[in-house]
């Protein structure tokens, strides 16, 4: 019967083979422009870490357990300036607050009807900007009960690949020619700028991009250390407010 086929896509517990197929579709999704740009960013990060006196094993370990590049850059900065463990942890925690709303947005998208909570906690470790943008762009084309497998494919492939990238480029990354190095560093912001615009599905998201991009650098010199936090909270609230005002006018 046609509806039995439909049910096996949306409601039933998928077979291991089907899960594996969607895991590999997620993994293959990372062989793309964003995956390439992230690897390039990790070459830059690798050079920074090498200059700061860390060993290659420590940096590969850090890539696996922390994952988000901004948090790792803050951790390295805190160690370089001789901070104590609590001070370093506080600085890293502040830089990671932004991951919370990103995970809040992702969870209802990847959660299937029978997904155990521990799976969601485990998958949340893979959340950083690239896997988040890639997932939000493509999840709507993935059957609901296979989205956790698909996201695991995207996230774990990105983490594993970039641990290898850090390992391989650690000794050469700090010796690149300046023009090449500057061009590589410019790839990440431009990629995020364009892909985030594509993946923001509503008016408030576009306002949020404009406000965040102005408020982040605006508060960088005024309140260093709190610039991302203010850019995110104030920018996000202002964007939501602007969206509400426009909606109220258009329905009035």
């Amino acid at each position: 019967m046609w509806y039995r086929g439909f049910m096996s896509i949306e409601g039933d517990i998928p077979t291991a083979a089907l899960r594996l197929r969607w895991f590999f579709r997620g993994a293959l999704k990372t062989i793309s422009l964003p995956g390439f740009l992230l690897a390039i960013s990790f070459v830059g990060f690798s050079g920074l870490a090498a200059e700061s006196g860390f060993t290659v094993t420590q940096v590969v370990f850090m890539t696996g357990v922390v994952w988000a590049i901004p948090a790792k850059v803050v951790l390295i900065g805190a160690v370089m300036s001789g901070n104590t463990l609590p001070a370093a942890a506080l600085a890293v925690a502040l830089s990671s607050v932004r991951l919370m709303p990103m995970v809040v947005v992702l969870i209802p998208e990847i959660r299937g009807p029978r997904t155990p909570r521990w799976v969601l906690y485990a998958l949340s470790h893979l959340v950083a900007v690239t896997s988040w943008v890639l997932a939000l762009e493509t999840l709507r084309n993935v059957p609901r009960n296979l989205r956790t497998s698909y996201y695991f494919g995207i996230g774990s492939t990105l983490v594993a690949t970039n641990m290898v990238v850090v390992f391989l480029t650690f000794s050469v990354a700090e010796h690149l020619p300046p023009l090449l190095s500057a061009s590589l560093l410019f790839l990440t912001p431009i990629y995020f700028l364009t892909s985030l615009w594509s993946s923001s599905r509503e008016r408030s998201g576009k306002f949020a991009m404009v406000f965040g991009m102005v408020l982040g650098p605006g508060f960088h010199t005024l309140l260093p250390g709190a610039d991302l936090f203010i850019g995110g909270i104030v920018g996000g609230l202002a964007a939501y407010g602007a969206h509400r005002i426009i909606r109220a006018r258009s329905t009035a």
Partner: protein
Amino acid sequence: MTFDALDTWWWPYLFILLGGWLATDSFRFLGVYLGGRLSETSEVMVLVRAIATAFVAAVIGNLIVFPGGELRATPIALRIGAAAIGFVTFLLVRRSVLAGVVAAEIVLAAGIMLTM
């Protein structure tokens, strides 16, 4: 207790675990806890999405205005101009991310070679 405080092989790894992993994953786990309570279509979610997007946008803005490494030596007007041209190209060429990135990089590289 600093990174160099103990002269043992395991202390740097414990430092990275507590100062890096715990500090970062706490917020990811808090997101799972809160996200499990909200539907993706709810009005609160529109607000949370706006805040998440603004956070990432603030990171983008800082990477362009206050970059690290070799990019710091380039003029700020060149970086903002290259980003703007890349974004307009992206909008004009069927929302192609690749077209936007290529246009921005060409402007940046040309600018570096002309000014430095």
